[in-house]
């Protein structure tokens, strides 16, 4: 018990206590300095009618809806490419995964430079192939900024999906594919009838990790657009950050944060439920 005490203490101090404290703060009008008053659920009522907050929620949902599918498809394709362990697959796998390792913050600074009008590589390349004017200012227009950030994030995050799917693909016994071949199955049929059903858990896991990551987006928007133009590209975490540490409405910001924790908690719980269920049914099938 002594051995687990430091870990439990840190988790209690920096996770469990702040969690309870957050609920408490969200029921007050806590400013950064000075006295606070208990105001009950008023912050939550305000949130529901705050166009700024609602916009950030809708924006986060839109962003998540745009990137989740492409991240999954690109990741799946790359997993198919590297799963076999053929010559070169370790190199390919490493190349696909490096953007994820370097991290969004660092790469956002690099991307900022390449998105500059007239000097960035993005405008240079796109103007050569006639897709954009060479002085397109990506970060100061809502649609352009969202487009650029989505492409950037798909590039960044697909490698993680690839890793998670590859792990599952390599766990599928080759006998199943051989049996399917004997039955005359085409590549597509093998993929559709053997790989996908057996990969359900990994697919669910990678999608959930991807969706949670998108819900928590901050770095790329803060660094590339600062939420602009105006506050049009402000995701939820940035709304919380600005409301708390720029506007000093800590109580109000925390109400938004509690809502975010609840949403993520529901997704995580769904993940546990889905993954557990599929595992159980697998066992049951095995037992028969």
């Amino acid at each position, binding site marked *: 018990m002594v051995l687990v005490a430091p870990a439990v203490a840190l988790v209690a101090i920096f996770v469990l206590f702040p969690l309870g404290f957050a609920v408490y703060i969200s029921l007050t009008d806590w400013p950064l300095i000075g006295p606070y008053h208990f105001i009950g659920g008023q912050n939550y009522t305000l949130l529901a009618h705050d166009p700024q907050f609602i916009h950030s929620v809708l924006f986060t949902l839109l962003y998540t809806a745009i990137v989740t599918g492409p991240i999954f498809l690109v990741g799946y394709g790359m997993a198919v490419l590297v799963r076999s362990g053929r010559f070169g697959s370790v190199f390919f796998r490493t190349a696909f995964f490096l953007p994820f*390792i370097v991290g969004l913050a660092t790469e956002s600074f*690099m991307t900022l430079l390449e998105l500059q009008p007239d000097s960035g590589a993005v405008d240079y390349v796109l103007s050569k192939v006639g897709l954009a004017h060479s002085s397109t200012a990506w970060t100061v227009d809502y649609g352009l900024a969202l487009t650029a950030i989505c492409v950037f994030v798909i590039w960044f995050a697909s490698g993680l999906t690839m890793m998670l799917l590859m792990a599952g693909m390599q766990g599928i016994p080759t006998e199943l594919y051989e049996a399917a071949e004997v039955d005359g199955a085409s590549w597509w049929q093998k993929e559709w009838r053997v790989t996908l059903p057996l990969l359900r858990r990994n697919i669910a896991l990678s999608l959930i990790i991807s969706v949670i990551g998108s819900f928590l987006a901050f770095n790329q928007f803060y660094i590339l657009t600062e939420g602009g133009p105006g506050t049009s590209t402000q995701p939820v975490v940035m709304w919380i950050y600005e409301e708390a540490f720029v506007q000093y409405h800590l109580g109000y910001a925390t109400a938004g944060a509690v809502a975010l924790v609840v949403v993520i908690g529901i997704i995580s719980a769904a993940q546990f439920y889905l993954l557990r269920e599929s595992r159980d049914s697998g066992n049951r099938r095995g037992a028969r």
Partner: protein
Amino acid sequence: MTAVSRTSYAPQASRRPKAAGSPGASRGSQGRRDLGRTGFALYLTGGTIASLIFLLPLAWAILRSFMPNDLVTQAPSTGDFSQLTTANYSGIIESNDILLYVGNSLLVAVATGLLTAVIATMAGYGFARFRFRGSGIVFAVVLVTMMIPFQALLTPLFLEMHSLGLTNNLAGLALFYTTFNLPFGVFVMRNTFLQIPWELSEAAAVDGASATRTLVSVLRPLIVPGLATTVLFAFLFSWTEFVGALTFITSNNLYTLPLALLNMEYGSVGQVNFGYLEAGAVIAMVPCILLYIGLQRFYIRGLMSGVVKG
């Protein structure tokens, strides 16, 4: 001994098919046979093109960081490559104190790695070897915190850490990072200790080995992979983390590397020096790439343990 270490590495063999092991070799040739010559050529071409899409932007950033700043703010052209210089690097060292920020980042990342290793090893051993009243529930609680996003706890954490004197404090930042790496670390270390056949240490004792000798010669090789995974994840998390540092660190001289880069972007008066910014970003990037390439089997092992758990 050999037999044991082979079993503990077994899951990796399938992931490193290029290793000397015969299963990988046969699998590779089998794949080539399946594909045929054209298919294999297509695979190589597709893989190479895709690799370029992922690697070129990173390589381009490195190249850009060696261009003079006035070229960085102009449209790229082929002439750029003839004027490579280290001016951006000497510039950010002299006028932006980048070494101080590298030091801060390194200090926090190393502290986070070591602290996570020590605490997760203790807890992992405790959970794996001893059953005490409520140990299952305590372990579940530690794991469940993996699902709580720290991004949503910034306000209570700020108030709490502020009252404890841990804001604007690199030790406080390291404690914060350690906590959010612990659930994963404890999970990995518990699995590591669960996989150790303890009869082995008993056998060593029977053979007359001292406790220290048992630990060093018999147990160390079994524990090191899990430990390396834990430290690597904690280090990389800390090195690349942004929003927590932004919230808890306010003094310029305590900035970590990402904050120093942000300061170069927004804090500077007038035109942003993009040459400096690019050089700083490359300094932040290179350790991640080297660590991953050198230690990727430990990294992938960690990812896979998460997948198995779900």
